[in-house]
C-alpha cells in the first residue's frame, strides 16, 4: 500500500517534469520562429525589468544594512571589522543578490503571470488566441521567459549595487567606519567572477520563475479557485526551485 503510494507519487513527479520540459521546449522553439512579437517582448521587459526595481532595490538596501550590522556584532569580537566590507560584498554578489532578487521577482511577477495567464485560460482567452491563429506559446509564454532570463540578471546587478551601498551607509554613518577605507576594502575584494556567477544564477532563476509562472497559469482549471491554487503553486514551486538550484549552482560555480 505504502509502496503503491510512493510509486504513484514518483510517477506523478516524473510526469510533471516531462510536462514542464515539453512546455518550455514548445515555448522556446516557437519563439525563435517568425513572426516575432516585439511589442509583447518590450511590454514584458518593462514589467519585469522596470516595475520590479523598487521592490528588489528596497530588499537589497535593507539586507545590506542588516548584514553589515550582524557582521559587526560577530567580527568586532575578533577585531576583524576590516573584513566586513569584503564579506558584505561577496555575500551580496554571490548569494544574497541573486537569491533575494529572484525570490522577490517570484513573489511579484511569478504570481502575476500565473494569475494573468490562468484567468485567460479559464475565460477561454487562450482558446480565442488559438482560433485567431496565434500560437499562444509564442505570444504569451516566450516573451515572458525571454525577458525573465535576460532581465533578472540585470535586477541582480542592481540588487548587488544597492545591497553594498546599504552596507556602506550603515558602516560609515552608523558604525563610524572610515569611508575611504570601507570603499577600498570593498573594491580590493571585488572579483569579476563573483559578480558573473551571481548573474548566471540570476539568468537561471529568471528562466525558472517565468517558466513556472506561465506553466501553472497555462494549465490552471476550475475557475477563480483554480487560478488561486495555481498562483500559490507557482510561487511555492518557483521559490523551492530557486533555493534548490542555488545550492546546485553554488557547487557548480564555486
Amino acid at each position, binding site marked *: 500500500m505504502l509502496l503503491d503510494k510512493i510509486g504513484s507519487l514518483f510517477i506523478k513527479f516524473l510526469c510533471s517534469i516531462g510536462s514542464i520540459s515539453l512546455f518550455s521546449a514548445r515555448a522556446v522553439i516557437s519563439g525563435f520562429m517568425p513572426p516575432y512579437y516585439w511589442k509583447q517582448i518590450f511590454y514584458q521587459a518593462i514589467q519585469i525589468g522596470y516595475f520590479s526595481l523598487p521592490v528588489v532595490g528596497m530588499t537589497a538596501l535593507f539586507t545590506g544594512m542588516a548584514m553589515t550590522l550582524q557582521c559587526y556584532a560577530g567580527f568586532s569580537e575578533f577585531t576583524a571589522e576590516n573584513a566586513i566590507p569584503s564579506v558584505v560584498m561577496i555575500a551580496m554578489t554571490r548569494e544574497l543578490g541573486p537569491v533575494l532578487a529572484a525570490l522577490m521577482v517570484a513573489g511579484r511577477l511569478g504570481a502575476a503571470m500565473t494569475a494573468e495567464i490562468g484567468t*485567460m485560460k479559464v475565460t477561454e*482567452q487562450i*482558446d480565442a488566441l*488559438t*482560433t*485567431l491563429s496565434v500560437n499562444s506559446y509564442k505570444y504569451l509564454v516566450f516573451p515572458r521567459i525571454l525577458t525573465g532570463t535576460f532581465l533578472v540578471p540585470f535586477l541582480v546587478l542592481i540588487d548587488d549595487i544597492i545591497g553594498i551601498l546599504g552596507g556602506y551607509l550603515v558602516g560609515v554613518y552608523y558604525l563610524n567606519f572610515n569611508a575611504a577605507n570601507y570603499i577600498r576594502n570593498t573594491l580590493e575584494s571585488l572579483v569579476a567572477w563573483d559578480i558573473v556567477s551571481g548573474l548566471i544564477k540570476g539568468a537561471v532563476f529568471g528562466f525558472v520563475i517565468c517558466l513556472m509562472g506561465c506553466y501553472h497559469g497555462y494549465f490552471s482549471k476550475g475557475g477563480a479557485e483554480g487560478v488561486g491554487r495555481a498562483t500559490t503553486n507557482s510561487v511555492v514551486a518557483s521559490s523551492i526551485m530557486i533555493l534548490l538550484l542555488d545550492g546546485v549552482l553554488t557547487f557548480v560555480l564555486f
Partner: protein
Amino acid sequence: MEYVIETEELTKTFGSNEVLRGISLRIKQGESYVVIGGSGSGKSVLIKCILGLIEPTGGVIKINGKDVAKLSPKELYKIRLKCGVLYQGGALFDSLNVIENVSFGLIYGLHVSPKEAYRIALEKLEAVDLDKSVATIYPAELSGGMSKRVALARAIATDPDIIFFDEPTTGLDPITSGIINDLIVRCTKEMGISAVSITHDINSLKHISDRVGLLFKGKIIWEGTNRELITTDNPYVVQFINGNSVGPFTAAS
C-alpha cells in the same frame, strides 16, 4: 456535395467518461446548424473538437473537405483563419481595448498592417451596430451585450467561411438577446457564412437555425429543420423545447 464541416463517428473520452459517442454531422455552405442539448451533454466539447482545441479520441473531422487530423500545424492555422468563434463569455482580451481586440486576428493572424486592420475593425464594429466611440474602451468597462457585439465583430473581422457560436445569448436580457440573434442572422445570411451554434435559448434557436441537432449522452439523437423542430413528436425534442421537467431527459442525464 462538399460540406464545410463533416464529422464521422467522432468520439471523445476523458478518463472513463465518454463525452462524445460517435457524432456524425454534415453542415452545408451557408447553413446555420444549431446543436441543442442538456448541460454536460458534450456540446462545447463537440465544438472544441471541431476547432482543434481538444484532440478527439476517435473519428474524422473535415473542414472544407480537409481532414484536420492530417494537417500540419501551419495548415491548421490557415484553416482556423477561415473560422470565427464567438465564445460564451466573449473571451475578449482584457489587456487590449475594443479596436485592438477586433483587429487582433487581422494583425497577428493575417498579418495585415495595423492601419488597415484598424480600418477593417471599425467597419466590423459598425456591422454590429457599434460606433467609433467604443474603440478605445477596455472589455472590463463594457456591458454584457456590448461585449458580445465586440466579440462578434472580432469573429467576423477575418471574413471567415464558418462561425461558431457558443451560447451567444447566455446571460443577456431578452431584448439584448434579440439584438444579438438579429446580428447573427444578419452576419451569417448577408455574408453567406456557415454557422455552427450551441444554445439553450429556445428563442435564439428558432431565430438563428436552419437545421437543428439534439445531443443526448454524447450522441445526436434527433436532427431536423427549424420547422420540423416545432412539428416533431420526438419526446426528447418536445420536452427540451417546452422545458418540461417530466420526460426522457432527467436531471441525472
